[in-house]
């Protein structure tokens, strides 16, 4: 009997190992590529841990290619689109939940199904006509396509489950609708705002397709900058892998630290932008 439970445990441990290793090995290999000189990256059989680490790869990336500029662009685009998305989407989620107009959420659902490129053609023409190209505004505005639906969707779910009694009591005490929202409903739904914020940040940060069309030389976000490194500027693997790791590191850290919120948000809405 003891042997059997022992065997079962070993089986479970093995299964977990098999499941987790593709993800872990991938990121370990990514780190390894980013810390090796060209000689080691071209070696056969491949080397996992080099004798000398090429920290220079990271310095190269950070110092050249206007990388800091692109990092700043990414922060501005994601930051602005997320804040605007929350500003617009949180009250909307509240209104929709209280009006019991959840049917209108079908617009959000169809937005979720629409390929990102179908937004790009008309908005690209619009931005050209408005003379906005060359600034970060086109990207900030189009990233609302990602952030607003995520926020609305998640907030509807949260406001639907918050109790109405408190709000009704506040109304009887003479509070306006806005005061009720601001001082009663919003504090209760705070965890929902956190979830919406995190997911909006991640999917906006990761977006690539809007950038390749709308970004100019000065207005590239990080994913576009990294892609352009492959095609034009860099051919050696070390700095490329280092750049890729820098781009995705903020998101990976967020995933590790806010894992519970991300899981809650994704299983509640399963909304992904773009």
């Amino acid at each position, binding site marked *: 009997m003891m042997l059997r439970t022992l065997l079962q445990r070993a089986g479970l441990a093995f299964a977990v190992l098999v499941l987790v290793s593709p993800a872990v090995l991938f990121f370990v290999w990514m780190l390894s590529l980013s810390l090796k000189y060209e000689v080691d990256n071209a070696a056969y059989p491949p080397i996992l841990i080099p004798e000398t680490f090429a920290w220079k790869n990271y310095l190269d990336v950070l110092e050249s290619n206007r990388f800091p500029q692109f990092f700043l662009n990414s922060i501005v685009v994601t930051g602005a689109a997320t804040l605007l998305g929350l500003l*617009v989407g949180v009250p909307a989620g509240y209104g929709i939940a209280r009006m019991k107009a959840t049917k209108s959420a079908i617009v959000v659902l169809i937005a979720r199904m629409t390929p990102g490129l179908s937004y790009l053609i008309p908005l690209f023409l619009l931005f050209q006509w408005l003379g906005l190209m060359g600034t970060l505004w086109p990207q900030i505005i189009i990233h609302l396509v990602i952030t607003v639906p995520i926020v609305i969707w998640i907030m509807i779910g949260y406001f639907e489950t918050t109790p109405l009694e408190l709000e009704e009591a506040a109304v009887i005490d003479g509070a306006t609708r806005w005061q009720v929202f601001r001082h009663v409903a919003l504090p209760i739904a705070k965890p929902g705002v956190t979830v919406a914020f995190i997911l909006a940040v991640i999917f906006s940060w990761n977006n690539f397709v809007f950038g390749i069309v709308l970004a100019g030389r000065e207005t590239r976000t990080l994913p576009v900058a990294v892609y352009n490194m492959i095609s034009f500027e860099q051919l050696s693997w070390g700095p490329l892998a280092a750049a890729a790791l820098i781009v995705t590191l903020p998101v990976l850290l967020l995933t590790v630290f806010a894992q519970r919120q991300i899981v809650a948000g994704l*299983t*509640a809405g399963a909304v992904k932008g773009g």
Partner: protein
Amino acid sequence: MSDLVMEKAAGEARPAAEQPTAGRRMAAYWPFVLPAVIVVGSVIVFPWVFTIWMSLHEWKIGGASSFVGLANYLRLTTDPRFGEAVVHTLVYTVLAVILPLVLGTLAALVFHARFPARGFLRGLFVMPMMATPVAIALVWTMMFHPELGVLNYLLSLVGIPPQLWVFHPVTVIPSLVLVETWQWTPLVMLILLGGLAAIPTEPYESALIDGAGRWQMFRYITLPMLAPFLMVAAIIRTIDALKSFDIIYAITQGGPGTASETINLYLYSVAFAYYDVGYGSAIAVVFFTLVVGLSVLLLYLRQRTKWTEAGAAI
């Protein structure tokens, strides 16, 4: 909770409990929704309408436009490159739905068990789907490299001859599906994990008393109870696989030749490499119809699975 996604859409059947003051109450909440209506109207609904309008025109960026009726749509039917793109998209989608679904089910069963550091390990497992797709694609491109890539080295360890991966027309789509599966199996796992948590323990207890084996319990209790969640996962996966762009564009740009060119990639070329936005819009409309059509079909199937599931539960 993941049911909400579709429940909201399918909520038509549910009659709203109208109260006498409902109208006035509704009006009070309009100011909350108005900013979102304006934003969604201009960045989401306006592009939909304008795309349909453009699709009826011969329209090049920087050139004049003229109304041509359905000519762009007729051109689609005789465009062999579009036909190929449709085939690539469907092959890619079928593979990129089935593989994550199967592996995601297995993963959910494993992560449903209790073991030490479960949360942390689940966090590691989920990382691929949150990572920046372009960054991921770049590293996969290096791993696929026929001479220097680590994948061929790993194959050589188990005695399999080296492959050309994304550099050969036959293996390019399966290789891309490998990346997509690696990336999105965690999402399927998360959805199903929610489903497993919702299954009550009583059926298993009575099954044990009746002397059912593990496989029988999985086949006749777990799987039917999980069916609605599997359908949700299948719908989400289908939408995402059809729309897949970043990975394919960053790794192959539709190549070699046009061997991995899906509708989305062809759409990109037509609109932003050839600047033929009229024709591009027609492709976008057809593509959009395909995505929504397949989703609605799966939704319909889901209603049926729900019905049979309810029948089995009685």
